[in-house]
């Protein structure tokens, strides 16, 4: 009985050892590939930065308005951004190759799927980038319009506009990469509806007095507000 247990244990340990002997070189290869990838990515990033700095790419981006556009989207300057993109793309490719070196068939399938997926991710990133630009533009426009109309919570309103637009574009980006297509759509509809309903209830209950004042000011007290003239424009 004892011998049987020992044999089983020996067998298990033996097969574990064999698997380990087979797996360790692969793991080591993966780590080497990843480390090499990191170094290659870093070198390429530095090279990209240097090349584009020499070619006065920065100046061109400034004059073309790209720098400002990226600043508006809270992104780093174009040269820095390009360097980062090159770094991450190269390193991710090496990471994927490293994982492939492990030789796990299930992982291999996922990796090939990942490569198939890359164009969609790229499109989603562009959608997000455009979304950030649009959100920034409209939130600033809202802020300025509200502040010039002497609205007391201009910043809050502007943040809300920004949030809604960002949510909308994140939804679009997620849909682009096919993540929970229906779930995202439903979640967005519910969230949007909730925000609108919440705002309506909050204004209706909490801001009854404000609403009354606004309406009275608009329709009833027009004569008295005209007593004091505003600045003559010219």
């Amino acid at each position, binding site marked *: 009985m004892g011998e049987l247990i020992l044999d089983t244990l020996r067998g298990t340990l033996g097969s574990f050892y064999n698997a380990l002997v087979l797996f360790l070189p692969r793991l080591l290869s993966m780590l080497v590939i990843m480390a090499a990838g990191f170094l290659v990515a870093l070198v390429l990033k530095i090279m990209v930065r240097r090349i584009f700095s020499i070619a006065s790419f920065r100046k061109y981006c*400034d004059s073309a*308005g790209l720098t*400002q556009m990226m600043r*508006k989207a809270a992104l780093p300057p174009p040269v820095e951004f390009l360097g980062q993109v090159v770094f991450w793309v190269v390193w991710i490719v090496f990471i994927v190759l490293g994982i492939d070196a492990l030789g796990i068939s299930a992982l291999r399938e996922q990796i090939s799927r990942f490569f198939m997926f890359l164009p969609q991710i790229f499109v989603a990133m562009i959608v997000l980038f455009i979304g950030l630009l649009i959100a920034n*533009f409209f939130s*600033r*426009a809202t*802020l*300025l*319009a*509200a*502040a*010039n109309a*002497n609205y*007391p919570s*201009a*910043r809050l309103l502007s943040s809300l506009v920004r949030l809604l637009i960002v949510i909308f574009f994140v939804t679009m980006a997620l849909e682009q990469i096919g993540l929970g297509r229906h779930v995202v759509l439903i979640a967005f509809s519910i969230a949007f509806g909730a925000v609108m309903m919440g705002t309506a209830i909050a204004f209706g209950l909490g801001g009854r007095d404000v609403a009354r004042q606004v309406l009275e000011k608009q329709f009833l007290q027009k004569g008295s507000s005209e*007593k*004091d*003239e*505003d*600045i*003559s*424009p*010219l």
Partner: protein
Amino acid sequence: MAEETFLSDDFVRRLTAVGEVDILVAVPTFNNRGTIEQVVNAVQLGLVKYFPRERIVLVNPDGGSRDGTPEAVRNSAIQDFRTMLSSTPLRTIHRITTTYGGVDGRSNAWRVILAAADLLRAKACAVVSPDLESITPEWIEGLVRPVYREKFDLVTPIYHRHKYDGLLVKNIIAPVIRAVYGTKVREPAGGEMGFSGRLACHYLEQNVWHEEFVRAFTEIWMTTRAITDGFKVCQSFLGPKIQARAPSQQNIVTTIQKAVGTLFRCMENQEAFWISRNGPPQPTPVFGFEYSSGLEPRRLNKKKMLAMFQNGVSQLAPVLESILSPEALRQIHGVSQQNEKQFRFPEGLWVKTIYEFAASFHHSVINREHLLQALTPIYRGRICSVVMEDHRADAEQIEQNLDALCREYENQRPQLVEKWTRKA
């Protein structure tokens, strides 16, 4: 000759029938039935009184009025000049009405007037607003004579204004033009203007009529362009300007966007002229007898202006950070903390703010429309301060204050050039 495809065939035919003229007076209209007869009559009287022997045409470009304005222009006639003047007309005053299209009527009307002046080979031209309640025949003499007899090319008006009227012109437009272009013009954005036929052709030849900034505020572009291109500029005192359509009904945000935006774009376009210019500003000859009279008092809501300034500065901090230097922004924040009694917006800080806005506009640090909108609350703060300072000031004191402001603009000009030419 400049492109004339924007003129209707009928209009060209009627212009051709008139032949050449000495003087062209234009009254661009749009739903001005209430005042147009008075304006046209004053124009006719002025022409008969001061230019009885000249060949004259009155052009009325109309933006599609639905209240019968063009008909009123055509039908308005003084039956008997002898009841008003010692002279009677020696020639017929031709009257031509045409319509102009397009979304932005103002610049289209200007283009029609300039093209008519070009086709008729007019020696002198004058343009007057259709909603004037205070126009007299002397306005026509004031606008036409310096061009027709004294050989000036551009006549800008000087009005007798209430101290709280024309604040945007007094605090930004005129002092910036004086400091930057080196020419003292008190009303570079007035609705009335006199100009020579030579200058009309020159304006028409410029390939800028499709540009948004020219369409937004044509008069500012015309004034700066005449200065930069070496035309002889003078001013003419016209008297009080009272308009039927109260200026306060217009939107201050939009007006700042249009007027200041046009000024900054002109500075950008004409950079080669002013950036290396040195020396003090040149005085501009003034025609007419300057007098002052009592004007209807105006009440401004200082509390509201101050509250809008304080709220605007606090709410717009993230936007202003990208436009102004930290030092200027800190000072503006300091000013916004003052209470109503102590409130003062120093002119040095005001000039610095305007110049930093101009440089940021030039470098497009943010969307330009947004940048101009961000100026409105600060402008309200400055105006609130001006109103408080000038509350008890007489005309002489106000003139001194304005002159001091203009000198501050001149003193800080090197900082503008430095910021303007600095790489973004």
